[in-house]
């Protein structure tokens, strides 16, 4: 990221209300294999949020995902709106001041119009809106895009929203029974995150440096969702692979951003956040500085990292750094955010 100032004026998160516990999943007969247990531990998920009514979920296993959507207590749009409202509140602006809404979802109820349109509609504004969708790298790609624009082409305030309700696309049964498999049920959760950004108005957080890259070769997405979500276990990174990737991204960051990292937080790839906390010191971070946003919420694709940042909003001290590394599906965004 050469030149281009971008400030984050507000960050918001919204979690689905229902907590789906390990015990409830076990009652459904969903048991993880030893390999799946490792993947779950690598993520650091201990509980997950779902927008499905628990009684419906445990009774039907969400066999019919369209019925799940009809019964859901929240949609990607409603969660996105909640996250947006928190971000706007923290930014101290009203939605009418926003000049652009950029949305992101991997679980849209409708593929047309864009989620950004639905969120704008729910917020009641007439403003440019569209989606920029890049898998788990989601909000990072939004930031990279906006930081690359000519400042005069950026509206004063831009609202970026990443919202996902993957549990609504899980059939909570084993693969043998035609379900999504146990791993999807244990890993995934429903959440949304939102950022209010500006190139002209200074905010509490400043984007210091960011780079987007894509991996060559096959798209190595850990999940697939033509309809029902499936885990693609062979695409999950090994522990060594996680460490190698994050180490390489950190090196790239240090080559691009030469200022000192001050008592930094790490928002790393949330699908592997548990492992990152375990190897924090090897990566140069204090363990308590490694954000595991998925611990009690489950993994919500591109929203999880944003939820992590929103969770730090009142914690990050002036001068302190936040290292952001997030991606998957072949796309990665890595950068540094600092508290002014």
């Amino acid at each position, binding site marked *: 990221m*050469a030149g281009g100032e971008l400030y984050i004026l507000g960050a918001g998160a919204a979690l689905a209300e229902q907590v789906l516990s390990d015990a409830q999943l076990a009652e459904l007969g969903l048991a993880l294999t030893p390999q799946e247990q490792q993947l779950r531990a690598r993520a650091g998920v201990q509980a997950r949020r779902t927008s499905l009514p628990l009684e419906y979920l445990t009774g039907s296993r969400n066999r019919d995902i369209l019925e799940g959507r009809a019964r859901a207590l929240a949609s990607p749009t409603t969660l996105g709106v909640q996250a947006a409202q928190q971000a706007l509140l923290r930014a101290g602006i009203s939605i009418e001041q926003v000049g652009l809404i950029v949305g992101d979802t991997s679980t849209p109820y409708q593929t047309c*119009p864009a989620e950004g349109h639905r969120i704008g509609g729910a917020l009641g504004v007439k403003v440019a809106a569209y989606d920029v969708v890049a898998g788990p790298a989601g909000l990072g790609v939004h930031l990279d895009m906006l930081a690359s*624009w000519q400042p005069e082409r950026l509206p004063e305030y831009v609202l970026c929203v990443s919202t996902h309700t993957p549990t609504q696309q899980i059939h909570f049964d084993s693969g043998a029974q035609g379900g999504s498999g146990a791993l999807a049920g244990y890993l995934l959760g429903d959440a949304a995150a939102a950022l209010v950004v500006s190139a002209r108005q200074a905010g509490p957080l400043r984007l210091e440096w960011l780079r987007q890259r*894509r991996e060559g070769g*096959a798209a190595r997405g850990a999940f697939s969702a033509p309809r029902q979500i499936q885990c693609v276990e062979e695409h999950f990174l090994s522990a060594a692979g996680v460490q190698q990737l994050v180490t390489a991204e950190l090196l790239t960051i240090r080559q691009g951003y030469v200022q000192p990292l001050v008592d930094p937080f790490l928002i790393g790839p949330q699908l592997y956040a548990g492992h990152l906390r375990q190897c924090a010191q090897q990566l140069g971070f204090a363990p308590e500085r490694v954000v595991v946003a998925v611990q009690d919420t489950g993994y919500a694709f591109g929203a999880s990292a944003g939820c992590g940042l929103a969770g730090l909003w009142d914690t990050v001290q002036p001068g302190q750094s936040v290292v952001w590394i997030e991606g998957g599906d072949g796309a990665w965004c890595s950068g540094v955010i600092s508290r002014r």
Partner: protein
Amino acid sequence: MLHILGMGTCHAETVITNKFLEDLDVGTNAQWIEEKIGILERVSTLPLEYIRTTRNGDPRVAREIASMSATDMGVKAAQAALERVGITADQVGMVIVNSCAPLCTVPGEAVRIAERLGCTAVAFDVVTACPAFALHIDLLRNYRPERLPEFVLCISTAALTQHVNYNDRSDGAIWGDAAAAWIVSPVHRGKLAVLDSNFTADPTRCGAVVVDTFGFFKQDGRAVRDFSVRQTVRLIKAFEEQYPLDWSRDVFIGHQANRTMLQQVTNNREIPESNHWHNVTYLGNQAGAGSAASLCAHWDEVAPGQHVVVAVVGAGLSWGSILLQGV
């Protein structure tokens, strides 16, 4: 200044005639279709026998028996564009894709298409349904030139006939399946220079046109029709007020939704038929690919100095325009 260096398209091969739709006996007839929307044929990735026997009652089945997916069409359109420009996929530095009916949402279309092309560039979906041509160009114009790669591949692809309920007397007449691709550069001069662009939306009307992820397309036809004509006229007038357009020389391309609506627009702006490029009559509404495909079909006719006004509207509701000039 951005230039469009080349374009490519891919259209489905099965032709659905108005007679075929009339014979489905769902309350429509060829004359009504021709008068109301001005479409004589449209192309589909679905077999005619499948439509005839099932009316596409379950769009999940449509995906499985379709001859091509949105991804397949996007790849083919991109390959055609790359060939036209004379570059290879590994020279592309960014891939952005719009689809209002993607094959699947995880991973996204841009990543899947880039992978199939053997392209390792950054790839992400930029989605707004039908006005995608304007959005993509306007979005790329926002970038600082040094932040854009040498070549950007833009694609719009959708197989919307797979989301049509062929028991509905009007929905079946609208859509055609297609993809269009255009390659843009901030450094290389191409056939078309991008002089101006804009994009915006009114999300308070986002319910007017929808495609359910696992279901059907639905729209408030009257509201959309009125909006489309009015907004397209506004977009053209805005360029007329700022630039020396001459409809005896310059060309208009609208959103390829409805030939009758486009006729209302060209009548309003007194654009002669010879300077109105369109393809909806025999291909149907190709969503975000339609306007780009129309331009692609006339690519060799673009003359130096000639302006091409692209004014497109669609779901969101969103709308945008591009002013191009032949180099």
